[in-house]
């Protein structure tokens, strides 16, 4: 009874891995690949996001003259949808041999980070650019013990984009020392991921069939997990609700 059971498990996992390898070609939709989608909401009143005083830099102040900048710690959209929540598979993912090949962009625009939270795969390339006529320094601050190494580069007006990647899964704060209110996140995860839009909706694509634990990460409200099963070519659903502090 023991050995056939074991070999079956081994065989099926090998088959699964091979399928994953075949299916998970970047942005190639093949039969069998599923997705996980849902909505992330805030339960309670949206906290007040303080306005930002940018008067120390005339460029930044002018850019926000008619539309004052606000902190983006908790961004709530229509129907209580939570923006900037990162969804990723924290358990059950066997690791894809191919890393997503699209290069997400982290823009420094009007002295704010766009997006405020940038999710990416381990080893996936991302690009940091500036749209501003004032100097920024882009300074991610990972824990060097994870294998991610901190760096700090200037981006004066007109500077070329900087392309980088991270070696290990980690939530990395990033800041500009020149404009101390500029604070964002690189959320580096293993495998497919998604970030919620302004209504709190998300879809994780390229998920092979299987049972997974999905984690929703919010910078201020913490993390939540849910078990999700994805059938071949099917869609799993996971909705999350964070309680307002």
């Amino acid at each position: 009874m023991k050995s056939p059971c074991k070999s079956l498990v081994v065989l099926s996992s090998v088959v699964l891995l091979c399928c994953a390898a075949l299916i998970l070609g970047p942005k190639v939709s093949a039969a069998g690949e599923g997705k996980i989608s849902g909505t992330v909401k805030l339960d309670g009143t949206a906290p007040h996001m303080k306005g930002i005083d940018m008067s120390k830099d005339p460029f930044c102040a002018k850019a926000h003259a008619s539309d004052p900048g606000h902190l983006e710690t908790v961004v709530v959209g229509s129907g209580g949808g939570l923006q900037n929540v990162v969804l990723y598979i924290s358990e059950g993912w066997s690791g894809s041999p191919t890393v997503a090949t699209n290069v997400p962009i982290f823009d420094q625009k009007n002295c704010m980070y766009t997006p405020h939270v940038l999710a990416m795969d381990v080893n996936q390339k991302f690009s940091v650019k500036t749209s501003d006529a004032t100097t920024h320094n882009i300074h991610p601050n990972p824990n060097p013990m994870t294998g991610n190494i901190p760096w700090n580069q200037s981006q004066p007006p007109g500077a070329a984009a900087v392309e980088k990647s991270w070696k290990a899964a980690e939530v990395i704060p990033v800041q500009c020392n020149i404009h101390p209110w500029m604070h964002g996140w690189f959320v580096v995860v293993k495998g497919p991921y998604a970030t919620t839009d302004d209504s709190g909706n998300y879809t994780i694509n390229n998920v092979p069939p299987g049972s997974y634990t999905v984690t929703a990460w919010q910078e201020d409200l913490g993390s939540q997990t849910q078990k999700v099963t994805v059938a071949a070519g099917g869609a799993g659903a996971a909705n999350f609700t964070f309680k307002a502090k």
Partner: protein
Amino acid sequence: MGTELRKWSLLLGAAAFLALPLPSWAQLTTIDLAQKLNTEAHVGKLTGHAKAGAADYRRYCVGCHGDLGDGNGEVAQWLEPPMWPKPRNFQLGVFKCRSTPTGTLPTDQDLFDAIGRGFDRSAMPIWNTFTNQQRVDLVAWVKHFSPRFSGGEKPGDPIQIPPEPEVTPERIKAGRDVFARVQCWKCHGVQGMANGPSASTLTDDLGRPIAAFNFAEGSRPKCGDTDKDIYRIFMTGLDGTPMPSFADNIKPDEAWDLVFYLRTFMAQNSKAKAMAKQLGLKPVDPNAPAPAGQ
């Protein structure tokens, strides 16, 4: 089946128990102690051995940098930034004074120079009382604390510094343009007096307050005070601090112009300072719109 399961869960439990007390890097990197203790350093013709540096480290360095090299020696608690920067945590492998690009390890020569130079405006004295062999052994011992070094990561390729050109009024003026374009004054101030609009909010990577360098007060830059040192400082950046690398945004020739302009702020006499006086150069205007990119 049941006994099999129990066996596995016991084994797993034991493994989890053993793994718990270890620091996270020990789980990620499998560097054994012997490998760490065999860390070497190479400076010129000298080879340093970690084990040979241990005794000097325990006698001279441990008070601040600590037994584990984590910067938590007995004295560390009395050092209050930004007046007295905290001792370096060698385990992180992140160093200010490098000849290598931001985000990379320094060369052995960089660490060797740092020990001999000391750090101005800090509790780190000039350790020029050691022989070169002692110093290079200490470099190896300092390296052995970081899994980055002992795990085999190589230092970055040192940035290339072209020979220093002759200082001219044109170069000083061009340096002023670079200073305005990349906006050094945001932290260092338009006269290099560390009073730029962002100066008061600066913190290091560990969230501790840190001061921008004040060119005018007559102290030495932490990573050396020769023209070449100043060139290197702004091109590599000082990792772990708010000072970024400008290597992508200042061309080598312009970099020398900027060195000459920075010299005009410094209390120490220099050819550049005398020239700037004659030119009657005014500080850059912080309210002028930023000049277009290069």
